[in-house]
């Protein structure tokens, strides 16, 4: 029997505001425990929240980037529950009137087609602190540095149909928030967190199955694995005559499995009600238009422009546009060397491989756009061959020597002197009479052997086109 997986994602994005959502405390990551918790964050009696306008601005920016309705009057609510890392005993969130309403974003499927995924809403809320259960001899430690940090919870429609689609959606979201500069989206550090609502149903069914919510998925790879695992668990369960129960499950990356956390059927009653310490947030048209004017070129528009302006393939354009930093890097390189296609090949090829190998982001690239542009420039003006360029590229790592200095000092300059090449060709022909005979007897493949020998003799520096032409004419004799 064929099954279909139905997925909706709830993504918490930590907004990159300088201070917390409702207090002036700093939000820097990694400070010593409880050093970034002021009287409001500690829920001292008598303290009151004041909305951070930067957080609101970022939320609206996100809303406009995904073509969402912006709530003209958004309302904060209290979500009540007891937990030691929730100092007030309630979380301030938005239930009925979120700042960002219905929107959508486009993802690229594996076959290259586009699919639009609905965004139900995105609401602003405060983060909780952290409970630390180790190192306290039977006690728990509480760190409230994170308590009160601004989050944007982005809720998708249940329109994702596979783990791969879910990853594509998440990556697209990641790309957009980074483009907007509203979060670093670092999943490992928790500045982007994903909960997945997963259910299965028989292919063609119109009703949704019972869903399980999977929490604690902290990388793109784990999103895929967790969903695949959970969908299979549900399918196995149903095929064995069982029934999926609505519950929260925790993904354990070490064991690659999900396990039950608590049943939502006996879920907390959060007793939401409007937060009386804050006034409703009223947003007017002028504010929205001012934010809209600040929006950068977004990934989809950039990809389309790369295709039309630089004649890149959809694929290359998509890869380059997926990150604003990558796209900017590429455009810098292309402008410097004047060859967009070659630049795209280098950025998505050798440079990307290098970054992957060293687990670096483009912002941390050991080779600046200026230097890569200079390198490609030397390929274009035939100072070096593409092959030698790879050697130069390797030689550029770990130092700031200029491309030209490296070519010069390592003697990598391409040989274009036809006299010198001719001499090489003559020597190779003279040294290999048997292969010459084979070639002349019609064995064309031997030609590659001569190219190899001649290149070797030139230590790779012979201009390949010239070498090719000379060998051809000499061999034909």
């Amino acid at each position, binding site marked *: 029997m064929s099954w279909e997986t139905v997925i909706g994602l709830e993504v918490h994005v930590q907004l990159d505001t300088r201070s917390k959502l409702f207090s002036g405390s700093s939000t820097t990551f990694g400070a010593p425990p409880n050093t970034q918790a002021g*009287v409001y964050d*500690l*829920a*001292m*009696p*008598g*303290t*009151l*929240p*004041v*909305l951070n306008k930067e957080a609101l601005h970022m939320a609206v920016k996100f809303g406009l980037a995904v073509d969402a309705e912006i709530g003209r009057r958004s309302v904060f609510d*209290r979500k*009540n529950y*007891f937990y*030691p890392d929730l*100092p*007030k*005993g*309630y979380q301030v969130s938005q239930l009925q009137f979120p700042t960002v309403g219905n929107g959508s974003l486009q993802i690229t499927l594996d076959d290259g087609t586009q699919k639009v995924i609905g965004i139900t809403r995105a609401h602003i809320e405060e983060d909780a602190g952290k409970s630390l259960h180790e190192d306290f001899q039977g006690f728990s430690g*509480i760190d409230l540095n994170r308590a009160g940090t601004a989050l944007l919870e982005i809720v998708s429609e249940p329109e994702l149909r596979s783990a791969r689609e879910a990853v594509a959606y998440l990556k697209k979201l990641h790309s957009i928030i980074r483009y907007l500069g509203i979060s670093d989206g670092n999943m490992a550090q928790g500045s982007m967190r994903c909960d997945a609502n997963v259910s299965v149903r028989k292919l063609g069914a119109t009703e949704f199955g019972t869903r399980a919510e999977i929490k604690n998925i902290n990388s793109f790879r784990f999103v895929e694995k967790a969903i695949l695992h959970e969908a299979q668990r549900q399918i196995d369960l149903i095929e064995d005559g069982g029934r999926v129960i609505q519950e929260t499950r925790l993904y354990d990356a070490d064991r690659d499995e999900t396990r039950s956390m608590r049943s939502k059927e006996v879920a907390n*009653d959060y*007793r*939401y*009600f409007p937060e*009386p*310490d*804050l*006034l409703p947030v009223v947003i007017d048209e002028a504010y929205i238009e001012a934010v809209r004017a600040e929006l950068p070129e977004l990934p989809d528009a950039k990809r389309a422009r790369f295709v039309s302006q630089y004649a890149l393939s959809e694929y290359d354009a998509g890869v380059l546009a997926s990150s604003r930093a990558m796209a900017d890097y590429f455009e810098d390189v292309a402008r410097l060397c004047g060859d967009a296609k070659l630049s795209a090949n280098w950025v998505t090829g050798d440079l990307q491989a290098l970054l992957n190998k060293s687990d670096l982001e483009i912002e941390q690239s050991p080779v600046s756009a200026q230097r890569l542009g200079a390198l490609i420039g030397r390929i274009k003006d035939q100072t070096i061959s593409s092959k030698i360029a790879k050697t130069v590229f390797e030689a550029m790592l770990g130092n700031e020597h200029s491309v030209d200095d490296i070519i010069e000092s390592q003697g990598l300059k391409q040989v274009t002197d036809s006299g010198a090449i001719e001499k090489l060709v003559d020597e190779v022909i003279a040294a290999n009479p048997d292969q010459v005979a084979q070639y002349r007897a019609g064995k064309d493949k031997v030609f590659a052997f001569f190219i190899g020998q001649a290149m070797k003799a030139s230590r790779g520096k012979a201009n390949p086109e010239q070498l090719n032409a000379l060998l051809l004419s000499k061999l034909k004799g």
Partner: protein
Amino acid sequence: MTRRTVAELSRSLARGEFSSLELTQDYLARIRAHNALYNAYITVTEELALTQAAAADARRARGEHGPLTGIPLAHKDIFCMQDVLTTCGSKMLANFVAPYNATVVERFNAAGAVTLGKTNMDEFAMGSSNETSFFGAVRNPWDPERVPGGSSGGSAAAVAADLCAMATGTDTGGSIRQPAAFCGITGFKPSYGRISRWGMIAFASSLDQAGPICKSAEDAALMMNVMAGPDSRDSTCVETPAPDYMATLNDSLQGLRIGVPKQHLAKGLGAEVEAALQAALKVFESLGATVKEVDLPNNHLSVSAYYVIAPAEASANLSRFDGVRYGYRCASPANLEDMYKRTRSEGFGSEVKRRIMVGTYALSAGYYDAYYIKAQQIRRLIKQDFDKAFQDVDVIIGPTTPHTAFKVGEKNDDPVTMYLEDIYTIGVNLAGLPGISIPAGSAVAPNGRSLPIGIQLVGNIFAEARVLNIAHQFQQHTDWHLQQPEV
């Protein structure tokens, strides 16, 4: 004995009749002599008071003083005061030393007022008799067998017994006005949003408002000039600057249109209170005012709506008292749940627990619409009734309470009867309006003691200056506010 008002003390200080230090020492001596009987103070900050008094005298000598510089003051123990015990009348905070100052405290400090201490109150401001305090009941200076009212009962008793020149209070459903009426003094609740709530321990956030408890409307104006005004730390505090409340105190009442709610003169109002109200209306008429009846058709629903909204907000506001970070924590908890349960069971008194349960119930899934939403709808109707009334009148005058102060212990077994005593004050909080209670008569108790009667003047939203003006003009032509109990 005639009362020492802030206005008079301020003039005496200015004339050099005595120093702030001498005045402060006099008040501290009175507290030492009489607080044991009235239990008005939870904490007396003697050392701080003497230091502040000396500083106030120095400031006055330099000519850098305002009207309240050197005037001894008491703060309701609901206001956080840095490095001072701030208990909110609860065992839960019996050990809590606040790490910061409330805006109200900050502003009185900046004005050079002298803080004598923190006054007793109903636990977390939940009560109308000051009997729910963990620190014991407060006694009414007019008759120590009787309650001073609540929740700002300690502040009211301290002002009435002249254990301070002036005091701060807070009012969520009548907690300034009702004790002012019971203690024969002046208590003013400004419009919601007129005074910052920063540092004021929350009971019901959408209703709580700080205000002056003092001996005259003029004193209230002097205090308002310090307390009122925008504060960026409270989002619900209005941004428009406060006017000078002294400037309009002497405006004429000629042509003033007074409305008397017909609902307030109906069944349930004590005869002595009604007589005092009628006599007061005659005084206003003699000053050029006209009196007409107004209709507040939904006022009878105010107590019910209030006892949904206030407990609902309180149930969340009091969640932070969990034993984790400060305040009371039960001994040797077995686990997290045990810690929560026992900390809160042992740390809160029964009235607070009752309201947390009521509020939690009202917000629960399946009941929210029937209780919380319905109560908010009633709140809007009550506000609309007032809006309509203020199209025809400038001020609404009625009784503050149906009766004079009751005896300690008299209403303890019947919370609902106690709640109903707030029928005239609660609607004013629900509508967010300014209301003042001023003394306007007295009744004689069976033991021969005289018991004060208060009337309430309610103004339109942010019409604080007008309300104070009307109350001041009344006090210029009567002397109820100057009567002092034998201490």
